[in-house]
């Protein structure tokens, strides 16, 4: 009952015209930054933050939240249409979403993503409204040893999900992890592998590397081939609406993706990317009938991940709203918006400023409906994007990528990384390496390293800490299964075949 009262109070705040306008504006800006590769959601939020000072705290927060989940909506668009991810959370979507679009179903793919994002958003807002405090306590049970094992488990299982060769993927993953170690060490603050230069101390940031490997290399590929981006000739309404069979495959994946994303969002680390890989892995693992479609345009392969990254955008708010601890930079920035208003975020936020918290939650319901209403008509427009002359697209994406990467931290080095990895990505793809594991390594490498070293500091170098804590013990067991499981599975099938033969 109390919850209902709170929620109603929240809607009273969220339905004020200025707050609806803020949610809409945020969602619109977010969609735009999500669509344009190179422009990061973090940058957009930071740039707009000073504007929020002119409004009340809750209005500012609603706008920033709108940008955050709006970007997750928009990120899939270029991934599906051009195979260039708009945000790092849409990298996985380039695998199957693009192939699906090539079959002439671009409109349907976008619509599935929009509806999936809406469902994921709604599921996780409900979860957030109901369980915020409870989930925060669960999240605290996860500490360094658990994060370390989760990262390890992620690496061990995810090398099997893309491409066709786990050993090659492992090499790519490890190179990604190695790249992440270059520069300033996050634990001690020391520099390493910099050869005493201040340039290398900047390290390899995720955005220029991912945009180089996926965005620029795709542009080089298009320039090299005469085939170009898939062409959309005419877009009829019928082609934009997914068929009944497509829906029936999409919605279970969307629900699973929402659940995965919601859980991953509770934990520290860049959840939007890891959740999409996890969702893709799960979909591929449990697929029976359509397993061989993965990589060739399986609906589950983009419906699940796109739902997952939207769920993350919402559930990442749990640790902030209940504990006042931001686990991702995006959420830290939203805290910043509270701070500039003179509101101190922390465990007392919910009791001291209930209108801010519940108003934000209610606005997210409204924001998600608004995004759906905004994006369904836009699907037709986005598909028409493919009819924009190709030279315009190519030149414009190059320019936007450059300016987006440069403004991130005013660094020429990041531009060099962008172009360098564009070339590396083109060459490796041409030879037959899968690039997704390298990006994954770049993301989970620092999580793994930080967590491992914190764990060893905590235990004084004693490795048994990984099996004496209950959650860690379960995760350790899962890691062992992940290593030996596939081998045993091969033996069993081989044994069966032998026994059948004899």
């Amino acid at each position, binding site marked *: 009952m109390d919850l209902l009262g709170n929620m109603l109070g929240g809607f009273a705040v969220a339905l004020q015209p200025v707050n609806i306008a803020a949610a809409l504006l945020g969602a619109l800006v977010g969609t735009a930054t999500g669509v344009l590769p190179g422009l990061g959601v973090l940058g957009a939020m930071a740039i707009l933050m000073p504007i929020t000072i002119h409004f009340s705290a809750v209005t500012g927060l609603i706008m920033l939240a709108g940008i955050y989940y709006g970007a997750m909506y928009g990120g899939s668009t270029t991934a599906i249409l051009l195979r260039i991810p708009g945000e790092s959370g849409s990298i996985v979507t380039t695998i199957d979403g693009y192939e699906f679009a090539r079959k002439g179903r671009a409109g349907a793919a976008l619509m599935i993503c929009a509806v999936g994002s809406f469902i994921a958003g709604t599921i996780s807002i409900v979860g957030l409204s109901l369980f915020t405090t409870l989930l925060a306590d669960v999240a605290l049970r996860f500490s360094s040893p658990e994060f370390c094992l989760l990262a390890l488990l992620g690496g061990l299982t995810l090398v099997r999900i893309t491409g066709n060769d786990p050993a090659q993927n492992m090499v790519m993953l490890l190179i990604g992890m190695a790249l992440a170690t270059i520069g300033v060490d996050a634990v001690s603050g020391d520099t390493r592998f910099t050869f005493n230069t201040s340039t290398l101390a900047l390290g390899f940031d995720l955005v220029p590397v991912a945009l180089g490997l996926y965005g620029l290399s795709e542009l080089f590929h298009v320039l090299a081939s005469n085939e170009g981006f898939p062409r959309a000739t005419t877009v009829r309404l019928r082609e934009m609406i997914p068929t009944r069979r497509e829906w029936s495959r999409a919605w279970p994946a969307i629900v699973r993706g929402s659940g995965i994303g919601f859980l991953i969002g509770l934990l520290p680390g860049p959840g939007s990317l890891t959740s999409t890989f996890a969702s893709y892995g799960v979909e591929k693992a449990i697929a029976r009938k359509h397993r061989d479609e993965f990589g060739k345009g399986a609906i589950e392969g983009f419906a699940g991940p796109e739902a997952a990254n939207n769920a993350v955008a919402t559930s990442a708010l749990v640790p902030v709203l209940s504990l006042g601890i931001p686990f991702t930079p995006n959420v830290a920035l939203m805290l910043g918006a509270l701070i500039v208003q003179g509101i101190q975020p922390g465990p007392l936020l919910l009791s001291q400023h209930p209108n801010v918290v519940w108003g934000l939650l209610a606005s997210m319901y409204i924001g998600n409906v608004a995004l759906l209403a905004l994006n369904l008509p836009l699907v037709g427009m986005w598909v028409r994007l493919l009819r924009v002359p190709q*030279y315009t697209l190519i030149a414009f994406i190059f320019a936007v990528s450059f300016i987006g990467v440069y403004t991130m931290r005013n660094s020429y080095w990041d*531009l060099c990384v962008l172009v360098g990895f564009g070339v590396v990505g083109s060459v490796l793809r041409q030879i037959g390496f899968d690039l997704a594991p390298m990006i994954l390594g770049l993301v989970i490498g620092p999580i793994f390293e930080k967590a491992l070293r914190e764990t060893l500091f905590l235990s004084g170098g004693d490795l048994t800490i990984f099996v004496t804590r209950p959650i860690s013990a379960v995760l350790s067991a899962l890691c062992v299964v992940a290593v030996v499981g596939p081998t045993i599975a091969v033996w069993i099938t081989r044994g069966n075949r032998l026994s059948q033969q004899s």
Partner: protein
Amino acid sequence: MDQAIVMKTEASTAANAPASTTGIRLTSLILTVAGLFYLYQAIELPMGDPPGTGVGAVPVLVAVCWVLFGALVTVRNRGVSADLGPWPRGSAALRVGVAFFLCVMFIVGLPFFGIFLTTGIFLLLMGRLAGAPWTSAVVLSAATPVAFWIVFSLGLKVSLPFGSLLTVIFRG
């Protein structure tokens, strides 16, 4: 005539299949050597006290696995399906080369010409390279920097590099 083209295509496909395996193995060899270099650098770093907490611990772990898996991929002989087809040749390869050159020139030119001038020139040349008619390329290269200027400089107050050239001209 048609026959000849078909035969040629088949021949090139046939030649490409083993080539991609060789490509994988050769690349893996190069990557493994890079891994050894990384390992060599990593073992110089402190391992920490208690062991494993230093800046060098995880790099050494990563490097050892990198070299092992790299060697595995290099040694074994396994066919792969490269999904991108043959390498670009002739004018296509030249286009990619020029595109790369333009990217490099963008970075080199940025400190001197500033973001707007550089973007304009880059868009003009890149548009032409991608097959735009002159008029479209000019419109694109003029409109985009103006749009950037309005959005970033005026709207969002982000400080962008105006370039040493403009600074020198306008400030003597």
